[in-house]
């Protein structure tokens, strides 16, 4: 990288000393970095804060530029109460649909994905020119397909099978969406567990299943939980399949929000309540698996 011999750390310190303005620049820099930090935090948090504040304002107060409860306006629970009184049944129905679909599709994807991930991590596959990493890339390539491309055939199949507007139909779609994620993250996890651990147990006379249940799964459980949580969050937020495949009985939270437009004008004080209901569960869940977020969004490509 460099041809001249390195002058060494002392020389660097010397170079810094020779320029007294460096220290000053550092202070100015710290100030700037702090400024950027505060600006970024405001930029990120303000929209969420606005939703929260609006949900605790009287409807007449909605459009006033007031930000601080108690100081600038009197907070009220009226919107939350009215929303649950007027639309409580719809909200509870959609919440339970979201919960059920997200949980079952996450579990299904996790089950199928860990099996495939384990197979890809532990056994050599060779079918003609196709090897393990080709199969893994094939799973990865599923991400490229825009959902709108498959949503039309999906709609027709579900119609034929009588699964339109059922939680089962939507669960099938969401499992499909999360399966590549589960497979690739779990393959990664199993690759990270030394084979020797399993071999030792096998030599000791344990069966393959015992090894899987007693050795491999406990070691993989943090990854299993995190992957499941991410899959749950992605399903909770999913919109295009839900919009196409459900319309009354099996609708999920994103559809509850989208429906707000159809009522008389947009009642922002109610919208903010619904937005928060939709937003809080996945955000809190994702915060609990922070270390997995990047891995999840890049399907294991970046750790």
């Amino acid at each position, binding site marked *: *990288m*460099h041809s001249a011999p*390195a002058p060494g750390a002392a*020389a*660097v310190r010397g170079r810094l000393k020779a320029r007294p303005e460096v220290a000053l620049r550092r202070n100015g820099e710290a100030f700037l*970095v702090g400024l950027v*930090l505060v600006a*970024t*935090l405001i930029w990120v*948090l303000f*929209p*969420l804060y606005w*939703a929260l504040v*609006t949900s605790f304002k009287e409807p007449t107060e909605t*459009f006033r*530029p007031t930000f601080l409860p108690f100081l600038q306006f009197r907070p009220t629970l009226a919107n939350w109460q009215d929303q649950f009184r007027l639309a409580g049944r719809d909200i509870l129905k959609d919440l339970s649909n979201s919960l059920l679909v997200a949980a079952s599709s996450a579990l299904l994807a996790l089950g*199928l994905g860990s099996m*495939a991930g*384990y*197979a890809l991590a*532990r*056994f050599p596959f060779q079918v003609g020119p196709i090897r393990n990493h080709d199969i893994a890339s094939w*799973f990865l390539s*599923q991400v*490229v397909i*825009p*959902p*709108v*491309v498959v*949503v039309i*055939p*999906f*709609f*027709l*199949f579900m119609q034929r099978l009588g699964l339109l507007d059922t939680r089962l139909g939507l669960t099938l*779609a969401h499992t*499909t969406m999360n399966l590549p994620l589960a497979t690739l993250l779990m393959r990664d996890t199993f690759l990270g567990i030394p084979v020797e651990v399993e071999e030792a147990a096998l030599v000791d006379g344990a069966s393959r299943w015992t090894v899987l249940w007693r050795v491999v799964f406990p070691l993989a459980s943090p990854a299993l939980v995190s992957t499941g949580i991410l899959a749950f969050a992605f399903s*909770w*937020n999913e*919109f*295009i399949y839900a*919009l*196409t495949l459900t319309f009354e009985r099996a609708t999920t939270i994103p559809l509850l*929000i*989208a429906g707000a437009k159809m009522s008389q004008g947009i009642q*922002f004080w109610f*919208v903010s309540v*619904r*937005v928060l209901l*939709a*937003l809080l569960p*996945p955000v809190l869940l*994702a915060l609990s698996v*922070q270390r997995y*977020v*990047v891995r999840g969004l*890049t399907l294991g*490509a*970046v*750790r």
Partner: protein
Amino acid sequence: MRDERVKWALLLPAVGWILTFTIYPLVYSLSLSFQNWNLTSPPQWVGLANYLRALQDPRMHNALRTTGLFVAATVTIELVLGFALALLFYRPIWGSRALRAVVVAPLFTSPIALAFLGMMLFHEEDGPIAHLLRMLGLPRVHWLSDPATALGSLILLDVWQWTPFAFLVFLAGLAGVPQEPIEAAIVDGAGRWAVLRHVLLPLLAPVAVTALLFKFIYSVKVFDLAFGLTGGGPGISTEVLALYIHRQGLEFFNLGYASALSYVFLVLVVLGCTVLLLRVRRLYEVA
């Protein structure tokens, strides 16, 4: 011998699932694209007519342009901003850990919720942004009602949601960068920009490629945000590809034509990914 059976028993359910629920629908959709069908009358084979129609459909051209603009703008802005923020905050500075946690929130905000939140924020008379602009004495902006700015508002919301993605990916990349070449360069008397340009960037190239590819894929699929915020309007100024295809298929029930459009879309996305990968790989082979 037993392992041989076990491994296939473990792999095949997942493979079969994708063959059933993705590949089969794709094949079905390909055959639909050569037919005319609106659910009410029996389907008709029309050969390439749907594809020829797509070539001349001005609304399709508009969707292509809108999506192209959206993708180019969001990917560029988010990667640049995310990289800059990562450079500032990858050191253990006070508050940088809090920032890492906080930015997870936009990433996991449901896009449809964000769209409605956007309507509140961009409210042209009395939204908080309008109030701020008024306070600063700036002119009013027609965030959502002017075809010229609506796409910009859409981009802005996407930037809010996805800049954290680039930020976190670059942070992960920076954490893996070895210190020696950087120190060596500083010792050799390289300035900050030189270190950034000739040492850090080449080291980060693989991570940047990953961020670019994934963000391209996520951006090009955009649907929820446009559906919720503008519904494609005003006019068709924010009608992105996914939105237009969904309309043709599931609002107008031109199932054959929508399938043809989705195949055009799919081919373009795959082509885009390939070109990106090839170009970018060449870039960092040189560097």
